[in-house]
């Protein structure tokens, strides 16, 4: 029997599109409609890890779930300072279990945030965030600025659903009624669709934002003719464009957070938007990558007070990014075991950190094989959240939505796996 499921959430990127149509036949997903190619490929699925595995004499051998849970618990209990890392592509419910586990074993919880929009969060700690839900932008914005981000490639449906091309109450003409400004170091596909593209030199975002702030603040005459390779005249035009909007929105990506200046770039951009509000309405939003990286920050925040890099070794949450964030811990060899869930640090962390990971016992929980599997010591395959398991995820604007279960799973969910590991940890503790 073919089952048509409407309004499915796509668990790929931070857009968390919730209008996907999925056709299920005989417990298998046969067709995906309405998603972008990135989302379709995720929902259709690919190479799954077939069975739990444990590394014996250097190679992974298939084993039972019970044995894998026991082995994982042994690793965590015997570690002095374990790292529980990932969480961006699973449910909030999974992270809740993970936090409880970290509390009980005195571990560190960090999310992929710390290597992506971590600097954005530090910027927000400095300045606050003048933000909105995406629907407000769809309904009102007449100026969209994409700064250091490329939604055409990374968030393919963003422009149509939420930003430059979306139609709403005060924006009935969609793209035609809006101006789109792209600021980037290269001419991306997003830039080719813009009304105006400002190409800047790599690593000069801070200078450009500072100059715009001066112009918005009425101090244009103090600027030199040339600011980091951009003419003052051009920046004055851009500042006028911003001030002249009825409702402006800046979306920024890793171009700001992972280039020279990092959190200072974000701090400066947040300040610019705050100051633009003396002239008109302006908001700003980070283009979050993984579908639930925002949710990971939210859960960790309400549980511990802090959005990432939380160390429970002292029995109470301790947060100091630069000390308790995953790269810093790994590069200092300050953790001695790792549980990696729903992420692939082997592909994404700096080489020195990956080497450190490879040297310590690693537990991996993931539906899919990835380069981290190559050095994992315990591999536990899980159900795919949002396809085979229910749960909560938060869109990039902080809106929470419920992921549905579309088909039955042959695998336990992340929540079930973490609960089983926690049970084993408690049992081992009691035995000792």
């Amino acid at each position: 029997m073919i089952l048509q499921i409407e309004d499915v959430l796509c668990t790929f990127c931070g857009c968390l599109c919730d209008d996907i149509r999925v056709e299920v036949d005989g417990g298998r997903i046969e067709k995906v409609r309405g998603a972008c190619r990135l989302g379709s490929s995720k929902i259709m699925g690919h190479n799954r890890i077939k069975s739990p595995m444990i590394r014996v004499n250097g190679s992974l051998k298939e084993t039972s779930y019970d044995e894998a849970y026991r082995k994982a618990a042994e690793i965590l209990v015997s570690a002095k300072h374990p790292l529980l890392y990932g969480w961006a592509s699973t449910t909030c419910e999974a992270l809740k279990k993970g936090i409880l586990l970290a509390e009980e074993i005195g571990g560190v919880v960090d999310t992929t945030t710390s290597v992506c929009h971590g600097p954005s969060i530090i910027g927000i700690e400095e300045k606050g965030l003048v933000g909105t839900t995406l629907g407000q932008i769809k309904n009102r914005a007449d100026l969209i600025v994409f700064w250091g981000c490329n939604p055409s490639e990374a968030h393919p449906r963003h422009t149509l659903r939420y930003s430059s091309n979306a139609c709403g109450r005060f924006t009935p003409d969609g793209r035609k009624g809006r101006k789109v400004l792209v600021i980037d170091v290269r001419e991306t596909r997003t830039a080719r669709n813009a009304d105006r593209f400002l190409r800047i030199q790599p690593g000069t975002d801070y200078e450009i934002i500072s100059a715009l702030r001066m112009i918005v603040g009425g101090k244009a005459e103090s600027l030199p003719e040339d600011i980091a390779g951009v003419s003052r005249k051009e920046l004055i035009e851009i500042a006028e464009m911003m001030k002249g909007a009825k409702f402006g929105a800046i979306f920024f990506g890793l171009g700001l957070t992972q280039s020279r200046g990092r959190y200072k770039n974000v701090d400066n951009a947040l300040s610019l938007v705050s100051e633009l509000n003396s002239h008109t309405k302006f908001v700003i939003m980070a283009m979050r990558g993984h579908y639930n990286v925002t949710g990971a920050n939210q859960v960790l925040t309400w549980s511990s007070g802090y959005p990432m890099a939380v160390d429970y070794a002292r029995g109470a949450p301790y947060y100091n990014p630069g000390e308790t964030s995953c790269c810093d811990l790994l590069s200092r060899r300050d953790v001695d075991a790792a549980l990696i869930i729903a992420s692939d640090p082997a592909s994404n962390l700096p080489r020195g950190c990956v080497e450190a990971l490879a040297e310590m016992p690693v537990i991996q929980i993931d539906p899919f094989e990835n380069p981290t599997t190559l050095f994992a010591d315990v591999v536990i395959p899980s159900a795919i959240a949002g396809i085979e398991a229910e749960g909560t995820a938060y869109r990039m604007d902080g809106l929470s939505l419920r992921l549905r279960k579309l088909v039955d799973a042959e695998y336990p969910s992340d929540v079930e796996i973490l609960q089983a590991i926690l049970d084993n940890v408690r049992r081992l503790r009691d035995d000792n």
Partner: protein
Amino acid sequence: MIIKGGIVYDPANGIFGEEMDICIENGRIVEDAGGEVIDASGLLVMPGGVDAHSHIAGPKMNTGRIMRPDDSRIGTEPRTRVCRPSTGYTVPNCYAIGYRYARLGYTTAFEAATPIIEARHTHEELEEIPIIDKGALTLFGSNWTVMECVRDNDLGKLAAYVAWGLRAARGYGIKIVNPGGGEAWGFGSNVKGVHDPVPHFDVTPAQIIRALAEVNERLRLPHSIHLHFNNLGRPGNYTTAIETLELLKDIKPSRMRQVVHVAHMQFSAYGGTGWKDFESKASAIADYFNQTNHATMDLGQIIFGPATTMTADAPLEYANARIGHQKWSNHDIELEESSGVVPWVYMRKMPVNAVQWAIGLELALLTNDPWKVVMTTDHPNGGPFVNYPEIIALLMSREKREEEMKTLHEVVRSRSTLPSIERELDWSEIVIMTRAAPARILGLEDKGHLGTGADADVSIYNIKPDEIDPSKDHAKVKVGMSRAKYTIKGGAVVVRDGEIVAAPQGRTYWVDAAVPESDMDRMLLDLKEKFERYYSIRMSNYMVQDAYISNPFVVRAGVQPLREVI
């Protein structure tokens, strides 16, 4: 369980400090019971505290936490055998909220403002708050559907929308914040008064407030409308407060309660034409409350030291950020609201802050009937709720007020009437303002009293009312009220000697109101179009699912069965 020998204050049942035993069975107060005996000989015994207005869960709380790692670091307490770890002072983590309320002897707290579309997040946090019972009020004051129904003068459809919205949000009542202002803020403006039209919607705040109040009574909701006035926080705004209350005088309540509850009255009792001649108008407000019977208030008392302001009054937060040179978070919510968060510090030597401090106390002391007043700090806007014992001590002791005033800016003497107020509240009045009145105002029939059948929520303090004179021994009052000797929640001892000994999961209250099907059908037709055209999520993904409320307590209201809406 039997609580033996306590000096019991249960003003809702006419008990004002009598030595008597309290019996508990199956989570309720009963006539007679056996089992565990708690020796409360000579100690102060009262119903568990009820906070009718506190910001404890949802996106704005987390925004505050994320903005303020400095605050999270204060108040850190490690994990124990019973407790998860605590952090924060003005923006505590979820666990700390539950434990700290319980330690104060509070067993119920209501989150004051949740947009429907973000209610799922609010419930995720409420679920993580241990021990206490809770609920969340739902924001309707700048909602497009609401304003269109008001413009079309279609109260049937408005009632259907409110019922649907409460169900979608699993919400408890109608919250209105700076009505119309949240919409105007969508393009960076605000409404200036109750008769200033909302841009693009052809309605005024006065019309929105009145219509929602009428619908509230049509739906027979347990609570009245819960109103944050226009012009809140601005000098001279007491006239807006009285003008707004006058709009509601002729509305007939559908239950034995007020027609309007005013949130954090202190922030709307200001005189003066600017910050330079800023002064208290608490006496004018209290006079109004003394002469009328349709309104109740909570104080929104300020506490010196750090606070985190958070409200759906986004233009106010923008102004706060500018005045205080503070970091500023804003959050607009499509079709429904806007909001903001700004850290704050109230200072003793700052003239405005000194007068604000006096206003809260004046309101409590000048309003004759304690049943019209709820003690709050509008946590964490006026300061964190953990300071309630400080306010209790201030209200019970003129001597303490005098001592405090000596440390404040001198304008507190010339621009408020506090120095001349002799009234000192007694224990019965304190119990009314912290238990009996908030329960009655919220419409929680089984809370705020110790009559047979009531929830077995009881607090016992290490204070002997027969031996202590709160007027002089105010320091002892403060210490005693800060850590309950026992807090009993739903019949279980959760606090003993000021320490958490158990952390059961509390209940979440929400209201399911019925409306005629024909109204619901008309309303849904419109609403579906709003989702097709304007919302950024699908209607089928909008409602809070049952999975988010593990322990619900559903209060039925309305007149006819509500059509099931999926």
